[in-house]
Structure formats: structure tokens, C-alpha cells
């Protein structure tokens, strides 16, 4: 890894023949320029050319880059079902193609109201009661279903 060099927006970092532009940079007339003030980082990610990026904080590289592939197991069917009322936080207003990006990655966020599965409970859709952070129970049939349950905070309910 190259030594830590600082740059300011507008500084020319290198030509596109040497590197591929990464986050915090932009391309112009065959050269890569910095669009952020920070440290210049060159990373060989197995590709032919290293990726050049500008990071504001040196510890940022310990965290995965935006868009990087992180392997973990999230089973959507164990978290949410259609019709659930979910408390989530807006983490980004989204880019051109996509809509709002939401997160429930906090203890206080997740499913608030859910109804039990129709096939198991007649008449269908009794409102379920949370019994743990990952399970809810139908009060009529006592059938348990998996949900990412929110630990609801009173101030969220008022808002």
C-alpha cells in the first residue's frame, strides 16, 4: 500500500492508464481527480489495475466500501411478511433509479404490527403479540411466526 498522501478536491491523482477510479474521485480527460479532501488510497483487488479512492477517515477502510460484497445470511421470510407495519429509518434518499433506502438494523426498529397467516388462523389475520426479538405469536391459535420485532419506543409512537 502506498504511503498516506493527502489531497484536496480537484487534485489530479493519476491517469486512467494506471488506475481505476474509486469512491471520492472523478474522471476527466483521461485523468482521475479527487472530489474529496482526504487520504489517497490505492488498492489492488485482484483486477489488472489498482483502484484509486479518497477516504476521509483512515479507519474507513476497515469497514466495507459502499457497494462491496459482504457475505452474511439474511432470510427475508424470517423477518418481514407482506402486510406488516414496519418501523424503519431512512438511511438514504436513494439514487436516480431506486427509491428510499430503509434500515431496521436497530433494536428499536422492525415489525410493529403483524397479522397471523390466514391459512392457520380462521377467521384470518389476527393481530399477533410479540414474544421475543424474533418471534410473534397469534393470540388465538398460539402459532408462532418469525419477525424482526421492534422494541417500540414511546417517542416514535407519538410522532
Amino acid at each position, binding site marked *: 500500500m502506498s504511503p498516506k498522501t493527502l489531497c484536496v478536491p*480537484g487534485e489530479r491523482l493519476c491517469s486512467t492508464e494506471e488506475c481505476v477510479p474509486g469512491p471520492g474521485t472523478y474522471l476527466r480527460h483521461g485523468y482521475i481527480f479527487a472530489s474529496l*479532501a482526504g*487520504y489517497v488510497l490505492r488498492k489492488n483487488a485482484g483486477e489488472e489495475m489498482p483502484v484509486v479512492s479518497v477516504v476521509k477517515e483512515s479507519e474507513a477502510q476497515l469497514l466495507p466500501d459502499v457497494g462491496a460484497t459482504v457475505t452474511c445470511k439474511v432470510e427475508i421470510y424470517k423477518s418481514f411478511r407482506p402486510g406488516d407495519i414496519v418501523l424503519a429509518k431512512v438511511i438514504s434518499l436513494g439514487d436516480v433509479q431506486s427509491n428510499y433506502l430503509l434500515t431496521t438494523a436497530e433494536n428499536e426498529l422492525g415489525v410493529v404490527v403483524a397479522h397471523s397467516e390466514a391459512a392457520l388462523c380462521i377467521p384470518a389475520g389476527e393481530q399477533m403479540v410479540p414474544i421475543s426479538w424474533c418471534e410473534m405469536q397469534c393470540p388465538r391459535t398460539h402459532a408462532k411466526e418469525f419477525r424482526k420485532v421492534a422494541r417500540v419506543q414511546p417517542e416514535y409512537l407519538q410522532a
Partner: protein
Amino acid sequence: MPVDTKRVRGPDESQSPLLFVLPSTGKPECPQEGREDGRQRSQADVRPVFARCGLISQAKGSAYIEAGNTKLICSVYGPRETDRKDEVDMKSGRLVCDFRFAPFSCPKRGSWIQGSEEKALSLGLLESLLPAACLHKYPRSQIEVNVVALEHDGSVLAHAVTCASLALADAGIEMYDLVLGCALRQDGPSFLIDPTFAEESGAQSAGSGENQGRVTVALLPSLHQVSGLQSDGEMAEDTLVGAVKACIEGCQRLYPVIQQALARAVRRKAPPTAV
């Protein structure tokens, strides 16, 4: 006249004591070749600049700049959701600039209510910054830039541009380049770069009224592009071209100081020892 009920009111009218100063005897006129603060005419002799980032704890980014007695502070908030969703182009973010004089910042006390000069300066600031900001990276969001002049001793728009671009960079808003500002007062055959308040508003030194005007240039120093140009007064074409060139040179002189201020802020936030 509408009564301002939201502020503590003083008398209906008051005058600055400067209006009643007895005319002093034999005040020496400013010499033709030199300037009152010892700088030279017709040279890119900008005042030394002091710049710092990150002074406002509540802001995403901030900067303070001092050039001679001109003192400006700027904060940047955002990107956050836009106030007015209806008319916004959803594909790119919006930059909002607000320029204000503190009431005590000028020789004559100003009002708390934003005047036409402040509105014009807000617009000039916005236009100079827009070409530099990568707004397409912030769709549906707005980025707010607030500048307050704490003391006005000339060339406020120019220094406001520099201060704001520094605060934007401190906030981590992506930009194609920094933006640096420099102002100039053309006074007949000679010019005064980075003029003080007195030089900016003072009468011409030569008798004739030719080539009198003011120019402010905003420059993207690394890409070497002009992002803002304001001029008033009457100048011959070649004089104006010369004035713009002098301003560009003035901007370039500021560049190392601004780079250092920014590098200092980056280092303070994240010391390089971590790697």
C-alpha cells in the same frame, strides 16, 4: 412602516456618530503609487489569509477566514431532504446559499433583516459554487451553505466564496475542485487587488472617470476554470481582461494556504498513524 415585534426595539431613528465628526484639517490624500496598508498598486498583492476548518461543532462542515480585517464564518449542513419537493429536479441535489452581514460588521450598523445587498451576495456565492459541486451525487437532497460576515473590510464576496468552498470540502461534499475568490478595484490606469472597504468604496484617485470599476472572480484553481465573474463600473475591454487575469493570479496565491488549512482539518479528524 411595519413594526418589528419580534425584536427589542430602539428609537425610531438614530444616526451614526461618524456623520457628525468635525472635518479634520489637512488629511493627507492616498498617494497615487502606494496603498494605505503598505501594499503596492497594480500587483497581485493580496492580504495574508488566515483560514481554519471545523470550528462549528453542530455543522457537517465549517470554515473561518480572515483576510486583513475581513472576517467570515461559514457552516454547511446536509445533504438532507429538500424543503421544497415539488419543483426540485429529483436527479440532482440542490445547493442553498445564505449570506448575511452581522449588524455590527460594517461601518454603519446594519439591520437584522436581510437586505438587497445580502440577497445579491447570496446569489453571487451560489453561482460561483455551483460549477464545483458534484450535485448529481446527492439526488433529492439539499446542501445548505450559511455565511456570516463578522467584519466587512472589503472583498467580502471573494472571501465568502473561498470560505464556503473550504466548508463544503470540510463537510465531505464531493466537488470537482475548490473555489477561490479574488476581488479587484480598477482605479484609472492602476488597480488595487483584494481592496479594503475604504478602497472599494472610496473615490477615484485620478481626476478622470475612465476605467473605474470593480471585479470579483471565482476560480477553480486546479482545473483552471472561472466559475464566477462579477463586474461593475466602466472599463475598456483590455482593462477588464487585465483585471480578470490579475484576479486569477490573486486566487492562485491563496491556493497553498487553503490547501494547508484543509489538510490540517483532515489530519485532525483522522491522524495518518492508523495505517
